[in-house]
């Protein structure tokens, strides 16, 4: 390829952008942990982390103690703790895969966000273009492809630990992933059917396209509630969150796949799990909650300047944050399913439901297509 300074600049920008994204997602993951602890505590009548403080910051009147009470610095302490903990590797593990597993778990979680649009910016002309690392035409397929790699981390951890509980955790995890990915994929087909305009050049599988289709119109959540529900449930299963946390399942499997992990390796698993949640929430926001767009049927009220960009990103983050809260909320509301229940829900409830949903929307879209006035 010919050397092009423009390309170099683009590349540099992308790298910078990528680091920022990783930083942002990691930070969000860290604060999800804090949120999890805080919300858990509140729901249980407790206070939650309120002890960590940075020197000097702590001494700022009012604000210092407020931040301390919120546990703002807790993720920092947690991360440092993981770093400084003694590195213990049990003697019986398969070392190569044992070390590999946490990385394999983290990388897909971070990779999926490259195709995630999270806002838009306006040029001088006031035209908007989406904020995204890589605006893939097949964004959603990329997400499916990459995020399902995450299970390899868990399976690898379970297998390489050479111990019963992790092994069981790994097995369960892989079975669960396969079971729910099917329903998840099927639940999204009607969405793309709905969005794509027959004969149009714009790819129906582009996430940017999905977001813009919801601008100043109904959110897909309202148009396709069943799809949204199935996707949400499958999302819980995919992220191994309660009530589907089969691989971890501390009541029957001690710690599940990460039983034999400690210190920073465990920390990576931990971050990966929350990164999954963050990314999952972001995807749900993108597809069903109109991304950075304001509210259904209401045009974005913010100006077409950089202020609007920031407000859009903020609005996107707010929706994502609510979903993260929803994840935690569900955790303390619904008890864990039994393993057989998980399987049965996936195969006998969600999959048929998704199929029926698909057929209904295929018929609906076909009918609508034949009626020109009703074209979306």
């Amino acid at each position: 390829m010919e050397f092009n300074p423009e390309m170099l600049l683009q590349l540099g920008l992308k790298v910078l952008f990528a680091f920022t994204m990783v930083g942002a997602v990691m930070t969000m993951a860290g604060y999800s942990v804090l949120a999890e602890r805080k919300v858990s505590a509140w729901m249980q009548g407790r206070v939650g982390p309120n002890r960590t403080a940075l020197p000097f910051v702590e001494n700022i009147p009012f604000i210092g103690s407020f931040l301390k009470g919120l546990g703002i610095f807790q993720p920092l302490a947690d991360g440092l703790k993981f770093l400084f903990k003694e590195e213990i590797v049990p003697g019986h593990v398969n070392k190569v895969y044992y070390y590999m597993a946490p990385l394999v778990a983290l990388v897909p979680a971070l990779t999926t966000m490259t195709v995630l649009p999270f806002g838009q910016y306006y040029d001088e002309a006031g035209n908007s273009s989406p904020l995204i690392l890589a605006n893939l035409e097949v964004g959603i397929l990329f997400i499916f492809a990459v995020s399902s790699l995450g299970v390899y981390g868990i399976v690898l951890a379970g297998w390489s630990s050479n111990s019963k509980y992790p092994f069981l955790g790994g097995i369960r995890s892989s079975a669960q992933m396969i079971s729910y990915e099917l329903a998840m994929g099927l639940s999204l087909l009607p969405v793309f059917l709905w969005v794509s305009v027959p004969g149009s050049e714009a790819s129906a599988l582009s996430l940017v396209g999905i977001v813009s289709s919801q601008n100043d119109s109904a959110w897909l959540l309202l148009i396709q509630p069943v799809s949204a529900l199935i996707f949400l449930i499958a999302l819980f299963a995919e992220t191994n969150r309660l009530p589907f946390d089969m691989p971890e399942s501390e009541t029957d499997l001690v710690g599940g796949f990460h039983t034999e992990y400690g210190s920073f390796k465990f920390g990576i698993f931990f971050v990966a799990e929350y990164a999954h949640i963050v990314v999952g929430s972001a995807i749900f926001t993108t597809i069903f909650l109109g991304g950075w767009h304001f509210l259904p049927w209401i045009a974005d009220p913010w100006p077409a300047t950089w202020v609007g960009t920031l407000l859009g990103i903020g609005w996107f983050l707010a929706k994502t944050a609510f979903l993260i809260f929803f994840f935690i909320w569900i955790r303390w509301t619904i008890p864990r399913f039994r393993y057989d229940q998980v399987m049965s829900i996936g195969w006998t409830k969600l999959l048929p439901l998704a199929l029926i949903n698909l057929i209904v929307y295929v018929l609906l879209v076909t009918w609508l297509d034949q009626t020109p006035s009703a074209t979306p």
Partner: protein
Amino acid sequence: MAKTVVLERKPLSLSERTYLPQIVTGLKTTFSNMFKEKATLQYPEEKPQLPQNYRGVPTLVNDPNGREKCVSCQLCEFVCPPKAIRITPGSVPEEDEDREHVEKAPQEFEINMLRCIYCGYCQEVCPEEAIFLLDEYSSSGYTREEMINNKAKLYELGGTLPDKHYKWDKKKDAEVEGNAH
């Protein structure tokens, strides 16, 4: 014997079978819990109000006259489930006029707080009411040896407790007075 009554279970309605309404109810409950008053005690600043029968660190106590009560019967050592207690028995020297009639006292008395499970069996079994689980609950140390409380430490922790029996004093009185025919 109670008679077993089999209750017919009502079949679930469709909405109930999706469980979604129930989940929504549950979500409401958990959400409302977030705004209730918190039960947490901010420990180092706020100390808990200990109940009367609180079982803290086991200690040895003196009688109101400041004399050792333990007679090293070793019942606590025997009953201790984690074998945390170790007593070296000894006798009270006959020169000890105030206590020679008790005859027996521990030479050494050790409670390993790394083993102790605070079950209180030792207090329950003690025939002399010499060992008590008092309200000390935070014991700490830098080495394993520090966590083994010896006799001096145990008496320091226990101090003197009121006692209405004066069992051995009565014996002493009878001995001094004598009551031969």
